[in-house]
C-alpha cells in the first residue's frame, strides 16, 4: 500500500513538473536562431520546399543514418530472438480469409503501393517522405498477408533489396562528401526549380532509397513475427 502511495505521489510530482507549461505559456511568435536559418536559407541552399525534409535528409543527415541503423539493429534483434521455431506447435487449422477481405484487398493493394511511392517521391514538396511512404508500403504488405494466409514473402529478396538500398544510401552520402560540401550533402545534383518533382538535388533520390529500405525492413519484421505460432 505504501509503495502504491509513493508511486502515485511520484506521478503527481511529474504532473506538477508540467504545471509551468500549462499556467504560463509564452506567446512568442519568433523563431529561434537555428530555425530562422533553416527557414530562410533552406529553400535557397537546397531547393527543397518541405523544410522538414531538408532538415532530415541534409542538415541532419547523420541523424537519419543513425536512425536507419537503429531500425536495422531492431530488425536483426527480432530475427535473432525468433530464430528458433517454437517447439510445441498448436495445430490450429488456418482459416482462409473472407470473401470481403479478399475482394477489398485486391482493390486496395495497388492503390496503397501507388500512394506509398507517391509519398516518398514527393517528400521534398508535400508532407511526407521516406519513412511514411515505407510504412504505407508495409501496410499494403500487411493487407496482403491478411488476405492470403498461405502466401509467404521471399525473405532473401526483401533482405537483398534492403541491403542494396542501404549501400546506395551510403554511396550517395560519400558522393556528397566528394562532389559537394560534406557527407550526405544533396547539392551535387542540379537544384532545379523549386516545386518541381525533379528538383532539390539528391533529396528525392535519398528519400526514395530510405522509403524502399524502411518498407522492406518492416515487411521483414512482419514476416518474422507472423511466422511464429504461439
Amino acid at each position, binding site marked *: 500500500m505504501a509503495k*502504491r502511495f509513493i*508511486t502515485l505521489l*511520484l*506521478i503527481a510530482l*511529474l*504532473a506538477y513538473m*508540467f504545471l509551468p*507549461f*500549462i*499556467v504560463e*505559456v509564452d*506567446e*512568442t*511568435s*519568433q*523563431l*529561434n536562431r*537555428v*530555425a530562422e536559418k*533553416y*527557414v530562410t536559407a*533552406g*529553400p535557397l541552399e537546397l531547393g527543397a*520546399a*518541405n*523544410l*522538414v525534409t*531538408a*532538415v*532530415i535528409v541534409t542538415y*541532419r543527415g547523420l*541523424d*537519419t543514418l543513425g*536512425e536507419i541503423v*537503429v*531500425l536495422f*539493429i*531492431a*530488425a536483426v*534483434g*527480432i530475427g535473432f*530472438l*525468433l530464430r528458433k521455431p*517454437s517447439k510445441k506447435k498448436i495445430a490450429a487449422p488456418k482459416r482462409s480469409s473472407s470473401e470481403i477481405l479478399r475482394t477489398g484487398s485486391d482493390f486496395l493493394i495497388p492503390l496503397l503501393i501507388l500512394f506509398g511511392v507517391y509519398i516518398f517521391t514527393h517528400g521534398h*514538396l*508535400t*508532407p511526407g*517522405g521516406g*519513412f511514411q511512404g515505407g*510504412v504505407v508500403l508495409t501496410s499494403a504488405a500487411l493487407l496482403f498477408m491478411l488476405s492470403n494466409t498461405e502466401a509467404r514473402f521471399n525473405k532473401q529478396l526483401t533482405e537483398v533489396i534492403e541491403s542494396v538500398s542501404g549501400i546506395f544510401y551510403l554511396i550517395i552520402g560519400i558522393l556528397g562528401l566528394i562532389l559537394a560540401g560534406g557527407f550526405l550533402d544533396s547539392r551535387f545534383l542540379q537544384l532545379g526549380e*523549386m*516545386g518541381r518533382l525533379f528538383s532539390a538535388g539528391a533529396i528525392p533520390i535519398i528519400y526514395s532509397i530510405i522509403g524502399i529500405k*524502411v518498407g522492406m525492413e*518492416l515487411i521483414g*519484421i512482419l514476416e*518474422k*513475427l507472423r511466422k*511464429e505460432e*504461439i
Partner: protein
Amino acid sequence: MIDNFPYIAVAILMGLGFYTLIFKKNLIKIAIGITLIENGANLFLITLGYRKGSVAPIYTQAPEGANMVLPTPQALTLTSIVIGVATTALILSIAMIIYRKYGTINTDEVRRLKE
C-alpha cells in the same frame, strides 16, 4: 486556456503511461505504457516547436509571407516515431519469447517460476 491544451494532453498521456508501467503486470500492457510515454514525449516536442499563428514549414503549401513553425522538432519527432516503432516491435518479440518459455506473460508468475 485552449493554447496550453496540448501540454495538458502531454501530462495526461505521460501520467497514464507511468501508471501502466508501474502497476500493471501484463507484459503487453507494459509495452502499451511505454508507447503512451513515447507519444507524450513526441507531442511535447511538437508543441514546443509551435509558434502562435504559424503554418507548417512547407513552401509549396504555405500562403505568401506567413510565419512558419520550427522545422527541427518536427524532423526529430519523425525520427523518434520510427525508433519507437522499432523498439515496440523488439519489446513485443521479447514478450513472445517469454511466453514461449514460461507459458505466461504475467511478470509476477514469471519471477516465481524461475526460482
